[in-house]
């Protein structure tokens, strides 16, 4: 994605030679970048950015900054906020590096982290609670369920993105919360769009439709609020809203009225006619990989309606990243500008024009031409990510388990240093001594892979486990990071409805440090961020249905039978008339004889005393 940034900047420099400083100062801009990906996917990145100066913000003078969010931030003393809603998974193997270098995405569900201004930890917690509850209402998400057990204070993984000139580390607190089970859906999109100055009525936001967005193979909505202080000039508060989604072109092209993928009529099938058995009723399907032609309105279900009048006119609203040699047809009133890098082009749109874009299919190569050249022409080759990560559970059963993360460094010559962060629920008790990193193909464990571990153990029902590991992976190698854990048994009432589904475990966050770290610059801190998929942990769940009852019942029966038998084996039963008699009269007699003895002894003593007295 760095490529994209470079080209973007290049373009800015080219077109904005008049007012370079206005890039930061411009109050609002929006941009959509479309990038076709392999396997007939299309990445659409929507980016909306607006600024307000800090002085105006503090004076409650909101212009482009959404008032509803601004008031929440002020009330909760929030200096910087990052909120993510994500669904699906990014297929790094085929799609390459993540958009924005992974900086604008979260794990499945909802993720929230913020820097709060507070003097003590308790105060920070209180403000955090205020913030999550308010955001929960604003975004129609269950953010209020981010309680103490789901909140952590990461130590190494996150650094502030904005400039915080007059704050110290003692009074800003970073809190991080995640809800892996939260299902992101249309009710979260509507409030998201409402924060935009044009509210989704004009500009690129008109393309955002719940049906398409949530049918995407992967999507991530992000809100980032941070103070930015340029070297010269006043500090501004910047809000950046990002939506990234990967659409399956074939699926998106289906008409909305008929979304069922019925088998097409036989003559419409794309067949590989080179097969010897090819016939009217026999069809080997042509490669799924085959390129598709698409239209913007087909993919998004509607046209883009004009441009938002508030946007900075110098930033082109739509860009497309396909090789420069590919032809693209656009509607009237749209101006195509190819960028110098040869892999991207942008479109300038007349204020009243609707944008329609057609990317025609590339015809298969002529006979004799190598097939590979088509692929090269068709798409911009995806960039290889710095690291591949895959996490899964090991083991089976209800008592113990393990987590295994496979980390692969694809680079042939440079090593990767990163921080691996896990936030686990308290009922997964990890055995820290079992944490082990080994390089695939080398026996034994390599201690030098793990450089630093920060571990904060869980407290039952109070807080979750926090684990941060700084590691270094040598070039072109695969590392297995494993640890074991024990599953706790929950109290009866602590099980959620649908307890047999299992419990979601949040994605691990992997922050790759840029090679020249240790500079305090926050943007230079993380070179790339990625998240693993979330996991489903099944805990022992009480089950009161038939088999359970039967097992309990039979075990009881066996235990009773054993008890009775054991008694028969070791005891001798005798009838009451056979044993020593037990009755009240007998008891009386025994008591009397005991008392009699005592009396006798007393009498003897008194006699002895008398005898002695007599002697004296």
């Amino acid at each position, binding site marked *: 994605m760095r490529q994209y940034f470079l080209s973007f900047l290049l373009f800015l420099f080219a077109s904005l030679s008049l007012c370079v400083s206005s890039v930061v100062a411009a109050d609002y801009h929006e941009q959509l970048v479309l990038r076709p990906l392999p396997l007939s996917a299309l990445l659409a990145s929507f980016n909306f950015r607006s600024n307000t100066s800090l002085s105006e913000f503090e004076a409650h003078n909101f212009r482009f900054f959404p008032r509803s969010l601004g008031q929440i931030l002020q009330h909760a003393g929030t200096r910087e906020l990052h909120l993510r809603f994500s669904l699906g998974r990014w297929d790094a193997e085929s799609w390459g590096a993540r958009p924005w270098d992974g900086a604008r995405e979260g794990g499945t569900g909802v993720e929230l982290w913020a820097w709060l201004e507070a003097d003590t930890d308790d105060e920070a917690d209180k403000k955090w609670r205020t913030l999550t509850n308010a955001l929960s209402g604003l975004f129609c998400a269950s953010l209020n369920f981010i309680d103490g057990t789901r909140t952590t204070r990461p130590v190494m993984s996150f650094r502030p993105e904005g400039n915080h000139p007059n704050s110290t580390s003692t009074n800003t607190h970073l809190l991080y919360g995640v809800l892996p089970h939260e299902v992101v859906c249309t009710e979260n999109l509507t409030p998201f769009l409402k924060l935009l100055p044009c509210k989704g009525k004009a500009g690129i936001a008109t393309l955002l439709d719940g049906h398409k967005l949530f049918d995407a193979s992967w999507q991530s909505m992000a809100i980032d609020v941070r103070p930015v202080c340029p070297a010269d000039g006043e500090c501004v508060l910047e809000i950046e809203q990002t939506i990234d989604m990967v659409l399956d072109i074939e699926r998106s092209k289906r008409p909305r009225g008929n979304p069922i*993928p019925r088998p097409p009529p036989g003559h419409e099938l794309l067949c590989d006619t080179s097969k010897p058995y090819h016939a009217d009723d026999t069809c080997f399907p042509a490669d799924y990989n085959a390129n598709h032609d698409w239209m913007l309105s087909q993919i998004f279900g509607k046209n883009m309606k004009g441009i938002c009048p508030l946007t900075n006119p110098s930033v082109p609203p739509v860009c497309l990243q396909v090789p420069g040699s590919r032809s693209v047809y656009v509607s009237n009133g749209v101006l195509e500008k190819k960028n110098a890098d040869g892999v991207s082009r942008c479109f300038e749109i007349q204020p009243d024009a609707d944008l329609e874009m057609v990317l025609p299919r590339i015809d298969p190569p002529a006979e004799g031409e190598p097939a590979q050249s088509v692929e090269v022409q068709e798409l911009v080759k995806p960039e290889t990510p710095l690291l591949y990560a895959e996490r899964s559970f090991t083991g089976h059963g209800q008592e113990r388990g393990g987590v295994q993360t496979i980390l692969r460094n694809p680079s042939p010559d440079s090593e990767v240093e990163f921080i691996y962060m896990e936030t686990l629920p308290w009922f997964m008790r990890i055995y820290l001594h079992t944490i082990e990193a080994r390089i695939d193909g080398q026996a034994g464990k390599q201690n030098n892979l793990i450089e630093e571990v920060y571990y904060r153990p869980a407290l039952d029902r109070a807080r979750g486990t926090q684990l941060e590991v700084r590691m270094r992976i040598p070039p072109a190698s695969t590392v297995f990071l494993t640890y074991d854990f024990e599953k706790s048994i929950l109290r009866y009432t602590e099980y959620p409805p649908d307890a047999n589904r299992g419990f979601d475990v949040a994605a691990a966050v992997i922050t790759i440090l840029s090679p020249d770290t240790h500079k305090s610059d926050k943007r230079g801190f993380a070179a790339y961020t990625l998240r693993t998929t979330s996991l489903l942990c099944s805990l022992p769940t009480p089950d009161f249905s038939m*088999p359970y009852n039967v097992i309990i019942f039979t075990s009881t029966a066996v235990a009773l039978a054993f008890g009775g038998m054991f008694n028969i084996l070791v005891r001798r039963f005798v009838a009451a008339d056979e044993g020593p008699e037990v009755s009240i009269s007998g008891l009386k007699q025994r008591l009397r004889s005991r008392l009699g003895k005592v009396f006798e002894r007393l009498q003897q003593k008194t006699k002895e005393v008398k005898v002695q007295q007599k002697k004296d």
Partner: protein
Amino acid sequence: MPRLLSGALRLRRDPRILKLPPYLSLLCILVGVVWLFLLPRDEYSRRTYISENALLPGQVHTYFGGSDQNVFRAYKHEVNALVDKSNIEINDRLESIIKGLGLKVGRQNFTYHSAGQVHSGENVYAILQAPRGDATEAIVLVAAWKNAKEELNRNGVSLILTLARYFKRWSLWSKDIIFLVTPDSIAGPQAWVDAYHDAHDSARVDSLPLKSGLLQGAIAVDYVQEHRFESIHIVYDGVNGQLPNLDLINSVVNIAGGQMGISTTLQEMWRHDDKYPDRLRTMLRGMLKQGLGLASGPHSSFIPYHVDAVTLQPFGEGWQDEMAMGRVVEGTFRSLNNLLEHLHQSFFFYLLMQRERFVSIGTYLPSAMLVAANFTIMAIALWVKSGQPGAEVAEGQEAKPAEKSNLAVERHLFLPLGVVTVCQFLGALPLYLFNHAPESMLTPAFFIFSSLNMALPHLLSHLLTTYYAPSAQQYQLIKSFSLLLLGMFLSSLATLNFSLAFLVGLLASPLTFMQPWPRAPAMRTACTIFLNAVAPTAVLVIGATYWNLSVDTVLREAAFAWDVCGTYTPVVVWCVWWPAWLAGSVTVLGRPDERDIKAKTA
């Protein structure tokens, strides 16, 4: 109450009470068997029902068909072209086809050694990632290249390729779908499932390169026949008699029958009139399979990991084509896709007697428990009896039982305990022998062992009488301890594998009535011959002859099941049943020391 208690205590001293246990034991066995035979009646069995509402079987339209048939034919051609190729070549081609569909493909090697044979191969599988899902849950579609009878599963493999292409088009999957093609029906799936749960021995089975989330269910397609089919045969027996959740079977029955109009059958009952004899036969076949605990198809290996799975086999002459089979699979997958939770609602312990009739564990368990209880009753009776002086000879002559009962005889425990312990530990020998002998040695080893087995009781008995001269009481104690162990083992086993416990209990039931015959050589010989006829080895030979199998096949299968699937039936046979049989045979051949008895009666 005290009067009742003392009455009971007086009754306890009644010598007649000691005559009761053998009859009680016999009654337990009879009631247990009759109970089982009553189960197929309408009064004792129940109609099946869908317990998990989320499944909604047969509630969705299935669209598989139309031009997918053209694709199916093409894949069929591709599969036919691979028929005589090696496993690797087949997988290379399958991999390229599946990759062409845009799925991720993984391969896994495995090598198992069993009975001196090497079972190796390579699994190939593909993961269709749920379009909007996170890798948290998955369902599996399996087709073995060769089915359990070593027939080529051409249609099955082609069908899952076509279904993979078809499923890819849908965006409604909430779980990943894994398509697995294994070279054989038992070892391949076993290796794959073991590796999926990281329970594999990495020296023999490779780890999986690709993984998804928790497995929620699996369907195996075993579609061998080339012509159109009539019905679907559902195979559901897991390893060690574990069964999939009844809801899964019900869903398939419901989808095939209610939606597609395809009838379903169980346990190779190709015709079923839903009358008592057919029901009984279905149930007994199911019990036998469950009792043997062998893997019956690719689905069997999934069940021990709590992944509910069945194999679907089309059969018969009819008018249903491959697309109908595909729609059944599609419907089942749509149902499984609806699941919010792991299948847990319905029964895991049941006996099916028709596709829509079952008995649950609460109804059938008493029969196995009664059979197991007969051993315990007898064991307790013998223990009590052994503590009474000369009870076995002098019952009739007792003039004053009340006085006599206060006198208890000291039990000489050492020898009986020793004999029973030795018998139990001897069981490890055949267990090791039959699971580690190479294939060529299996049959000779078996016949040598069988003949030794016939001589062993005589040898042990001779050693005992010569060196230890056990008394009648000690024989009683030997029998008591061995029956006690048997009863304990079987009643616990009945909760895990009902059928195995019942069958072993029934075959071992003559042991309850065995006793030394010091003065009746004819009786002793008769008992010995009878016991030899119900010895584990003899039962094995008789069973093999009845089902037209060679002993060699049976032994090889057993060793394979032990080595690959972890079947525990051999442990039950050699460490529970055989020691009890040995102890029983020794008792029959016993010659209690006469002097001892005389001394006591004097």
